[in-house]
């Protein structure tokens, strides 16, 4: 494979096909979520989406027969880096792309792959995740939503919580208890089903940010064919853990991928000013900014360090265990720092006459960052995992 030529080819295609208006970071309302009720914020967004779907670029590393572009790992890396260089927006965001799809690719039957993957790649179905329950948060394996066998079907009763966008999603991948008598991890099944099934109801929950995309989802005698289980019945925990890894990897990148992208050092120049020597005039915050920058620098190169270590034959997978914890905790500290730098200008609430768009967004990101150290396994759960797997400490709760 001539990767140099490949890079040229990708660059040329992006230059020619990505509309200029799609080369800036997308605000939340500008993201294109796939699904039966797909909406486009602009004609360019639709064009960009359609061009990418044609080439399989919504899921570049998936096999061509399932709607991907069939890229190998290096090609995918090049593709993403060229996308970043040009600032191209993702053509489609979807839990199907990040989580359901990769899980189906790894655990699905041929029939399941053919049924679900092309629809994700083409943005026809939007997925949501049914994991947490009101009584099963950090202790996820303690989940109680029941699936009782009835002929070729399961009958599902129970409730899920923090199901993002459940009210706008078409399908759900959902953890259900199929054997209440087995040890808690051995009685769970990973089920895929249509949110339009009778008996499914999603109710949005308002968060401190004012957003309403988290839902509580209720299942009242929902009938799901048994063949919709991904992986074996009662062995869903294996699939669930793998999906959590996908989720954590994705979340450890949140500090880079989303947000107002305001850098503390730049904000400081504006909100605090500089002294005659060009230094940020508040020495305490200047020190805090340097600490943030150094921590971020260290975090940002850790992935590359791991790759280099493996290339040189001395890698350690345990390093990967730190990403979710370090990435989301650092993001949280970054926004606390930004608020200190912005002073009262960082505390506006929906007041567009006194606060800029960027300021209001930064304030919302500050609140939003609180969810990231909770969702996908809290920081405390991440520390449990590190204590157990990297340090081999005894008696870790899990």
């Amino acid at each position, binding site marked *: 494979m001539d990767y140099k030529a490949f890079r040229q080819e990708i660059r040329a295609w992006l230059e020619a096909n990505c509309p200029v208006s799609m080369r800036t970071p997308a605000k939340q309302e500008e993201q294109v979520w796939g699904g039966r009720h797909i909406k486009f914020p602009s004609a360019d967004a639709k064009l960009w989406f359609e061009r990418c779907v044609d080439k399989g670029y919504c899921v570049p590393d998936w096999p061509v027969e399932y709607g991907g572009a069939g890229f190998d790992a290096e090609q995918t890396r090049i593709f993403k880096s060229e996308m970043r260089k040009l600032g191209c927006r993702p053509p489609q965001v979807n839990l199907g792309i990040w989580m359901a799809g990769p899980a189906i690719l790894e655990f699905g039957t041929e029939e399941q792959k053919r049924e679900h993957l092309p629809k994700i790649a083409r943005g026809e179905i939007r997925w949501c995740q049914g994991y947490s329950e009101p009584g099963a948060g950090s202790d996820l394996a303690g989940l109680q939503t029941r699936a009782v066998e009835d002929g070729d079907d399961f009958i599902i009763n129970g409730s899920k919580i923090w199901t993002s966008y459940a009210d706008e999603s078409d399908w759900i991948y959902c953890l259900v208890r199929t054997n209440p008598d087995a040890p808690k991890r051995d009685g769970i099944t990973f089920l895929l089903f249509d949110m339009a099934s009778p008996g499914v109801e999603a109710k949005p929950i308002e968060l401190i940010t004012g957003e309403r995309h988290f839902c509580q989802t209720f299942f009242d005698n929902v009938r799901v064919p048994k063949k919709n289980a991904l992986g074996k019945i009662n062995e869903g925990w294996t699939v669930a853990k793998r999906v959590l890894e996908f989720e954590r990897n994705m979340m450890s990148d949140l500090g880079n991928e989303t947000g107002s992208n305001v850098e503390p*050092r730049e904000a*400081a*120049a504006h909100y605090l000013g*500089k002294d005659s020597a*060009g*230094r*940020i005039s508040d020495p305490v915050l*200047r*020190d805090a*900014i*340097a*600490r943030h*920058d*150094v*921590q971020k*620098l*260290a*975090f940002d*190169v*850790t992935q*590359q*360090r791991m790759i*280099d*270590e493996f*290339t*040189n*034959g*001395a*890698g350690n997978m345990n*390093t990967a265990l*730190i990403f979710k*914890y*370090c990435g989301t905790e650092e993001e949280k500290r970054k926004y606390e720092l930004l608020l200190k730098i912005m002073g009262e200008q960082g505390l506006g609430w929906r007041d567009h006459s006194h606060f800029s768009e960027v300021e209001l967004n930064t304030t919302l990101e500050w609140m939003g960052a609180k969810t990231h150290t909770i969702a996908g396994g809290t920081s*405390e759960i*991440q*520390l*449990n995992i*590190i*204590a157990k797997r*990297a*340090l*081999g*400490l*005894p*008696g*870790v*709760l899990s």
Partner: protein
Amino acid sequence: MALAFNEEQRSLKDTARDFAQSQSPIEAFRSLRDSKPADGFSADVWNAMIELGWSGMIYPESCGGFDFGCMGLAGCFEEFGRSLVASPLLSSVVLAGSTVLFAGSEEQKTTLLPQVVSGEKRLALAVDEGFHHDPSGIACAAIAEGSTFILNGSKTRVIDGTGADLFVVAARTAGQPGEQQGISLFLLDASTPGVRIYPVSLVDSRSYVHLVLENACIPASRLLGELHNGFAALDKALDRGRACLAAEMFGGMQEIFERTVQYLKERKQFGVLIGTFQALQHRAAHMYTEIEMCKSILMLALDALEKDAANAPQLISAAKAKISDTYELVSNEATQMHGGIGVTDELDIGLFLKRARVSAALLGSARFHYNRFATLEGY
């Protein structure tokens, strides 16, 4: 970027580990501390280190070295840090020798550096004058007088100054303390009249001296590099030293972290291993993440240093700052988690705790380096 040691560097690092464990384990440092040799290190160990080539790694062949690079040497420092190996590798070879390399004339380099590499001559770098590292704050005066310079002033905490043959002295020939311009570098013979050497005891039991210079007369031929323009070479040499010291600290923090995790798996209270307590599990896991971050920033700094990248100075500051802070965290937690035994002299943790604080202060504290990082980054 190469953020991992290559095979050659790794094999050298393994040699350093074997050497440290067999020739200079912590017990050796302990007996050194108790027997208090004047120079602060074992001549036998140092000679063996020279024999194994560590003193020549960062010098070109023309200077008696074999040009292996700072990254490889830093890997060895990491291993030496694990068993608190005391030697003049940092003071004579990395700090003072590099100052000669970056500032000296061809003749000065090719005459003196081979002697440093062979151990025939031992150098020490005299920079700081106050309570804190401050290489631009130099006040010690050098005044030209005929074909000589007359030095007056004092220098604090010169590393391994006892028994050094020559001091590389940074002195002010123009400008005011605080200015980088006006600093010049000199080679000062330790036996020069007017040079008084006072040993200073620090908690880490290594060798330090205060120097008092009273009309010490240096021939003009002993000026290193250009008059008034010594700062750049000095700072570059200091950066090599900061990177190697950071690597040593990184080795020390890993050693006590591993010992602490091991202790959590052995010590029982309330009838169970204390490692089963979540209060301790989470603190240990948090330390693990911080140590991983230290490794990333250290490798980034070493890579930049090796390539002589334009941003190497700020990355080295980033590494020294982050590692100093983390070593403080890890050494405090190691002491605390060992409980009562943690504050006894019998346990080795205390030796690392003391070295952690001295090495954090030497060549710039976390505060110094976060400030330097911000300045170099333009804010």
